């Protein structure tokens, strides 16, 4: 499920126990050429044996449906890693010449795959199924008019709040960010132990989603030249807003996905959580005793027009070295646009599908387990999803994200200007792009 990918850091320590000393051995597996093979126009119905690297929960059950229907085109699932680590692994496998046919990638990781020549150009497949997705969703996998992945799930952002505690403290649900700040101050006045929400340095994807909502466009690629605007006006507005409140102790500045955060979400130290559609699933994991006490509403707004950003979500890409391209395309199309597959992904994998057809699936008629008090959860979510906007990602999102974490962690500690932190992230990100040899035009 999407939420698992945001805090793998916790597990990273375990996974990496031996890794550090084993670095040279790991690296020894690399080598080989980076040539892109010519496009093959194979027979989509020819027998095939496809490998699929993915971390979607229970995806095996979904693939089983395919395998039963297509006995000659067997798909084998391999849960190699999640998120960024899967990307690193895929890059290594690509160089070693044994990349999987099908790759699960978060949207922001696609450019890394593209610029390493791993993700195949799927534009020919895309033309037929573009209509299955909203324009906002489709834009997440398209770069310079070419499509490199088919969207699987999306994470439109929405606000979760503790209905019971809002009532108890006499608070009104904020619909704008100004109201959000007011409510945050009221919370501190009424109970000094509580905060309305927290700003997390550990979740760059979350911050990117907040920036998207405000209208930011961090990266634009114009014919090979990158324009980087991580410190654009919209992002600085978001950063200054949160920074002012965190530095004044009106909002908390502690990271999410820690034991402390779990406790705060359970005992009401935190009253609200700007999160994504999969947030209800996370709440079930971290604060099961608060079942029925949360309510989901649209994000607070900046201006008149309703908007929200994305946090998380992923697509399926095909390896450029796959010799079974046509069959792989057939599977990807089925997985992400077929009603039966989408229903199974929702029921078994707990994802919120990217395809509009999936968003009105009968599987979504019931509210999530945590929110029995909001039976229309998914209907409301579908409306919110319509207002979501994303932006294009760059080939060094991984570097940008890790810089974000360290720079913002320091800003929170030092109580320094968040807008300056955004400038620092911009500088680090641009420097890295340039170092790698990309054409960069600074805004």
């Amino acid at each position: 499920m999407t939420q698992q990918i945001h805090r793998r850091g916790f597990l990273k320590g375990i996974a990496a126990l031996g890794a550090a000393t084993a670095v040279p051995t790991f690296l020894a597996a690399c080598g080989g050429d980076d040539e892109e093979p010519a496009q093959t126009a194979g027979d989509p119905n020819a027998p095939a044996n496809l490998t699929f690297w993915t971390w979607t929960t229970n995806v095996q059950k979904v693939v089983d449906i395919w395998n039963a229907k297509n006995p000659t085109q067997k798909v084998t699932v391999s849960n190699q890693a999640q998120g960024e680590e899967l990307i690193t692994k895929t890059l290594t496998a690509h160089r070693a010449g044994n990349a999987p046919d099908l790759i699960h990638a978060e949207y922001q990781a696609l450019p890394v795959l593209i610029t390493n020549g791993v993700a195949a150009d799927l534009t020919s497949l895309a033309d037929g199924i573009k209509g299955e997705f909203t324009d906002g969703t489709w834009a997440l996998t398209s770069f310079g008019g070419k499509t490199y992945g088919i969207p699987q799930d999306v994470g439109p952002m929405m606000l979760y709040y503790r209905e019971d505690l809002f009532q108890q403290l006499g608070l009104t649900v904020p619909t704008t960010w100004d109201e959000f700040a007011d409510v945050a101050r009221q919370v501190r006045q009424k109970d000094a132990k509580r905060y309305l929400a927290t700003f997390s340095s550990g979740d760059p994807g979350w911050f990117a989603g907040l920036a998207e909502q405000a209208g930011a466009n961090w990266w634009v690629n114009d014919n090979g030249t990158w324009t980087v605007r991580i410190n654009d006006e919209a992002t600085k507005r978001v950063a200054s807003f949160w920074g002012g409140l965190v530095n004044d102790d009106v909002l908390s500045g502690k990271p999410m996905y820690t034991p402390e955060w779990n406790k705060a979400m359970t005992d009401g130290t935190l009253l609200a959580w700007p999160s994504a559609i999969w947030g209800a699933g996370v709440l079930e994991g971290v604060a099961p005793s608060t079942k029925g006490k949360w309510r989901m509403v649209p994000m607070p707004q900046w201006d008149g027009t309703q908007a929200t950003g994305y946090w998380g979500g992923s697509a399926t890409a095909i390896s450029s070295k796959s010799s079974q391209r046509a069959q792989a395309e057939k599977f990807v199309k089925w997985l992400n646009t077929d009603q039966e597959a989408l229903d199974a992904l929702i029921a078994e994998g707990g994802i919120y599908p990217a395809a509009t057809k999936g968003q009105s699936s009968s599987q979504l008629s019931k509210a999530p387990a945590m929110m029995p008090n909001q039976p229309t959860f998914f209907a409301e979510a579908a409306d919110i999803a319509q207002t979501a906007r994303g932006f294009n990602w760059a080939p060094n999102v991984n570097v940008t994200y890790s810089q974000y974490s360290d720079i913002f962690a320091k800003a929170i500690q030092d109580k320094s200007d968040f807008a300056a932190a955004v400038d620092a992230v911009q500088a680090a990100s641009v420097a890295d792009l340039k170092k790698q040899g990309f054409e960069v035009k600074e805004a």
Partner: protein
Amino acid sequence: MLAAATVRRRRPSRRGGPTPYVLMAPAVVLLVLFLLVPIGYTVYLSLRANRVTGGGLGIRRETFVGLENYASVLTDSAYVDGVLRMLLYGVIVVPSMLGLALLFALLLDTPRVRFGAFSRIGIFLPYAVPGVIASLLWGFLYLPDVSPIRDTFEWLGLPAPDFLAPGTVLFSVANIGVWGGVGFNMIVLFTALRGLPPEMYEAARIDGANEVQIALRVKVPLIMPAIVMTGIFAMISTLQVYTEPATLQPLTDTVSQTWVPLMTIYRDAFVNADIYSAAAASVVLALGTLAVSVAVLTLLQRRAFGRDR
């Protein structure tokens, strides 16, 4: 008799002949395959990098970049800060860990010790706890809102310490290392103490030495080789510190992703997908480790093992 005669007769044939090489071969092959080749490949990678060519989004290709990676590693203030922090960590951990280990070993070696076996196991037990688990355990004790230590302080009406503040976090991490390491070192030193001939203590007692004097004047000098050895092991493990800070990193803002050099290497290789920078940083760290180890060994060798040479 017969055997001895055979050996004597065969001895001259040891010169020349392929036997020694055949016997050495497995070890040499393993050494080359699993140590020298990977090291060589790491050095090779450290001289290369992905650079972009082509239009559109561009395609990354591996190219030779000379010492560029080394230059950026050595000028990266985060990496250099990490190295300094690691050294400071060592300055805290090595003396306190060895000091405690020696103290416990000497205490357990006194004639009037009670519950010796029980205490030994008690002190040794933390060593059996995997580093990740230990870090998680301590993490829970450190995190302000879930820490029972803080609860206790608050209950007593005292100002609660913040274990994860910028000024204290290094000591908090060092504490995990010491907690986990004392037991092992204590056992090594204790074993060395048990190997000493008891007649020496008797002689010392007859000369009027008390237990403290025996410990400091007789026992410590005699187990100096064991102390030096544990010291070098402790130093090397300091240079490899990773597990504790990496486990705490997602829990707090005060531990960055580049807190110690190995964390930077991990991030470069597995998060930023830049094995080339990671390789360069690894080589720098390995050379540093080698230099420090050799320097300390030469410095101590004469003092500790002098009489054997």
